[in-house]
């Protein structure tokens, strides 16, 4: 049972992710872009952040960079939800401080098993 911040500009993905995570007993806060995510992150320390890469206003890479500047979020796992199979985006994410990635499309089972890796 963990508190998770799920960031995606696509409402269907957000719903799918949060439904899956809530079903597994986690607390989920949804945010629709990096700016909103930062706002939530400023109010509370979440155990895990899941973020899409391509988003308006502030994308996922920028979000990780910003998060890592916050004292509370120095070590919090941040996973990028990415469709890019090319290493490019993954490398950018890693460089920005992301913990890892989940490649879209993923199914609920894959999502749960991946976050189990970082939550232990």
């Amino acid at each position, binding site marked *: 049972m963990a508190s998770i911040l799920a960031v995606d500009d696509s409402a*269907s993905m957000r*719903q799918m992710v949060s439904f899956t995570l809530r079903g597994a007993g986690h607390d989920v806060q949804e945010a629709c872009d990096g700016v909103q995510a930062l706002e939530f992150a400023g109010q509370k320390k979440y155990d895990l952040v899941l973020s899409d890469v391509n988003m*308006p206003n502030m994308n996922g890479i920028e979000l990780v960079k910003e998060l890592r500047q916050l004292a509370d979020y120095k070590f919090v*796992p941040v996973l990028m939800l990415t469709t890019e199979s*090319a290493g490019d985006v993954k490398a950018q994410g890693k460089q920005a401080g992301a913990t890892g990635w989940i490649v879209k499309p993923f199914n*609920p089972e894959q999502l749960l098993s991946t976050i189990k890796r*970082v939550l232990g």
Partner: protein
Amino acid sequence: MSIDLSQFHQIFFEESFEGLDVMESQLLDLQPQEVDAESVNTIFRAAHSIKGGAGTFGFMQVSEFTHVVETLLDEIRSGTRSMQRNYIDLFLQSVDCLRAMLGSLQSGSEPDGERAATLKASFEKILQQSADSDSQVTEEKPTVADEGCSNGWRITFRPAEDILQTGNEPFRMFRELQELVGADNLTVIPLTDNLPEFTSLHPENCYLSWVLEVRSDVNRDDIAAVFEWVADDCDIDYQPLSVAAAPDIPTADTAVTEMAESAVSTDSTEPVSAVIPDKVSEALSASAAQQAKPAARTAGKSNEPSSIRVSIDKVDSLINMVGELVITQSMLGQLGQDFDMSRLARLQEGLTQLEQNTRELQESVMKIRMMPISFAFSRFPRLVRDLGGQLGKQVNLVMLGENTELDKTVMEKIGDPLVHLVRNSLDHGLETTEQRLAAGKPGEGTITLNAYHQGGNIVIEVKDDGAGLNEERILNKARQKGLVPETQELSSEEIHQLIFLPGFSTADVVSDISGRGVGMDVVRRNIAELNGSIEVKSKRGKGSTFIIRLPLTLAILDGQLVKVKDETYIFPLVSIVESIQLQKRSLNHVTGSQYVMKLRDEYIPIVRLDELFNLRASDDEFENPMLVVVEGDNEKVGIVVDDLLGQQQVVIKSLEQNYKRVTGISGATILGDGTVALIIDVSDVGKNLDKSAKGQSRSDQAA
């Protein structure tokens, strides 16, 4: 745990359609010469989301098709390829194709794969032509040779110093590895050779390295998967264990815990030492996450009930009103418990307050269904662009009042008539560029869509600066078709109205664009069904304007209450032309039992509601009858009633749903005193007229 993904389909479709709208409007604004990076980004993002969602929810056809669209967009976005006009066209076609595919999927049918395949081939052709600079090479993941079937592995894991700051915890990876191979088969030995002097030790860094021995027959790929996220920044070395090399490390099963302890002990002298476990548990015990969702929206169910997006402000104001209503109610309730006449003033005050609350609540609820007309207008830039191209006309589309709000149902139903009017203006209204230049006009024609509120109505204008209606041709056509007698002279306005008659089309050649058998009469009927009206103003050589008037909502109607015998009926206020005192002597009897009346220079048929609804014995006569002149289907009808009562807004209840359809009645409502009043269907009443009387009235008019 298995989750039914179909519950998210509806919302996926909704957001995909929205994304497609965004793509379309951005594409239409795009100039190939000067591509705005942000627009391309927005278009890319929309395509990207659709692809991701489609893949996740199992619509592989959509996902595969969107993939090629996205790839080309990505090349343009990253600058390896420049935007070209034919790309824009191709993207626009893809938007249409995706819209169709998603539409069929939404209705549960199989999408048309052929169109997608054709488009996909075009994309692939473009993509194969090497882009401006080097073509993108999709980086194949270096596949590690499968070296399974060994006795195990010795892994030397030297993480980057800042590994913890990316949220990666070596301990977690070891635990995962332990789960993979079993605790008995894993030995973890920490290496402290890199540990600095205490004074130069940074508590947030990781100075340890580890040797992990896996004594189990696992694939190297499976182990590598554990380190997938850190493989690029960390030094990981895999050595197969030879059969002979017996493990000389003791207490394998406790190794993991030892490791954890040693990891902590290295920097336990620092106060911030146990920073990770501490922070995690702190976060775990933190209060439950707020569940407030960023936008109020109803979760779509799989069998698509139509949903509506409402801004949070509207919902808040609604909640606020309900709050006030509750206060008023409790005040009145208290007053009712021990009421005497001395408190009459308070009661009246309370009732006034209640009235105000109710009115405000009603307005707020109505606002929820209101959407800006830009939803209906948004399709026109594309339509005008495509049609203008087809017809070889240069057209400038101007849209005004896009934020004017109207009811969602009205919005949905006004779309088609508007499309028809705009097509009509483009096809018949605007001249060709040559003709325009010859007439001394700018070569580019202008079509203006304008929406604004006027009283309780919304007015939508479709205006062109074309040639205007050709009155001569319209009149000739009408005479030809026998719609107007040869001898009859008509004013300009009357001629303009002719285009709304059934079976009327002036286009000599039925073109692909308008005149597909759907004429202006259908447009008028559609608008009449919404309790609206349409008129046309035209000036030869200057252009035409079609003016549509619609009620803001279908749920509430501005009504005129009338009395017939002991019954109360309601006329839609919009349909009433005028109400006059009926003079018996101005009534004429024509063939059959049909009365007509000469009103100014026009003969109008008269309908007695009491006769129509069998309310009165034949010998019983009106005492002081009123005549309500109404207009439905462009036909004026005079309706005789006993008296005019007040005007008020009434909430429309369906008669069909609650009882059955009744000719001449469009619905019912409940009045303040609790009685049911029927709402008159004006055009239906007009249809009941004796046909011969109609003909008679027209020829009288001609005489």
